[in-house]
């Protein structure tokens, strides 16, 4: 991450000088730092709401019931969360919410799942194998219905926007499987 950070910034400055747009680049850079804070503050309400609801499910014992159902397939992907019931159900909720295109609900579940994974992590600054796998499948963005894209296409009066659903589903499934595959292969090389 340190190298990516340094590399991206230096390359960008060099390209900006080469393209004579250093002033625009600096302006965009400062605007982005402001945008980051706006996004985080925008998350407060929705995070608070969903974490509140999830807490009710957790305290009432509903989470334990959910995690019992999905334990077997989940443990194949995340072998080290056998005794971590909260992580199991939050990962399941995150993946189902993403699959349904409810990314607003998926993010709080995902963050909660990360916290549950972090609770059994020995070195709190370094990601565990399960954390990396979970992040990789989330960045693959598996969803059954690409709701936002469909909305944009219909708003522009496309003929039959549903034609993109099947190809999108095939592509996103391939990306999901390869994220899983790469995470499992690469974890052997990054200690």
């Amino acid at each position, binding site marked *: *991450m340190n190298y990516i950070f340094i590399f*991206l910034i230096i*390359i960008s*400055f060099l390209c*900006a000088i*080469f*393209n004579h747009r250093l002033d*625009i*680049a600096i302006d*965009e*850079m400062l605007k982005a730092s402001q945008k*980051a*804070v706006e*996004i*985080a503050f925008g*998350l*407060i*309400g929705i*995070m*608070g*709401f969903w*974490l*509140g*609801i999830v807490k*009710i*499910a957790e305290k*009432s014992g509903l989470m334990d019931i959910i995690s019992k159902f999905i334990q077997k397939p989940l443990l194949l992907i995340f072998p080290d969360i056998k005794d971590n019931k909260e992580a199991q159900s939050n990962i399941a909720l995150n993946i189902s919410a993403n699959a*349904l295109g409810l990314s607003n*609900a998926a*993010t709080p579940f*995902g*963050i909660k799942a*990360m916290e549950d994974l*972090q609770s059994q992590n020995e070195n*709190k600054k370094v*990601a565990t194998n399960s954390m990396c796998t979970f*992040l*990789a499948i989330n*960045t*693959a963005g598996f969803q*059954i*219905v*690409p*709701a*936002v*894209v*469909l909305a*944009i*296409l219909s708003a522009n009066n*496309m*003929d039959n926007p549903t034609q*993109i659903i099947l*190809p999108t*589903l*095939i592509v996103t499934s391939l*990306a999901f499987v*390869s*994220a899983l595959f*790469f*995470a499992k292969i690469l974890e052997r090389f990054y200690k």
Partner: protein
Amino acid sequence: MINFLNTLSIWILPLIIVFILVFALYKKTPAYEVFVEGANEGFKIAVKIIPYLIAIMVCTALFRASGAIEIIENFLKPVLDYFKIPIETTIIMLTRSLSGSATLGVLADIINQTGVNSYATKLAAVITGSSETTFYVASVYFGAVGIKKFRHALLAGILADIVGLIAAVWICSIFFL
């Protein structure tokens, strides 16, 4: 099909919430108190991810504004022509992992430039719908729990994005060309 899915996505959230609340009532869980306790965590997490988001978003915004993408675009042009990839869609391939709002902006731009029924629009729509903003997801999820060493997570995510792009080009050429 799409009507059914739209109805489903409207109904699913209220159903989940009502189910959780009815279950809590049945188990005599103090729902209001527990909700407030959980909601309190939401605020802390949102504040905690700010420094990570700033780092990531500054990087990606700078990269986009620097014109680096146009340089890569010129460089790749012969390869794109060979695989019948419309030149308009290169930007979306390069921004997809970097910025979600920029990607939607580029999609709107492609629709404007090439028309909503063009091959470029279909390819761009599939790319947008089939992936997530890898760098944003990484900074939010790992930032929330204070992870600083990402290990292989980002590399696995980016490799999967690349597989997704290749698959999108391939699948779209089968479906739409």
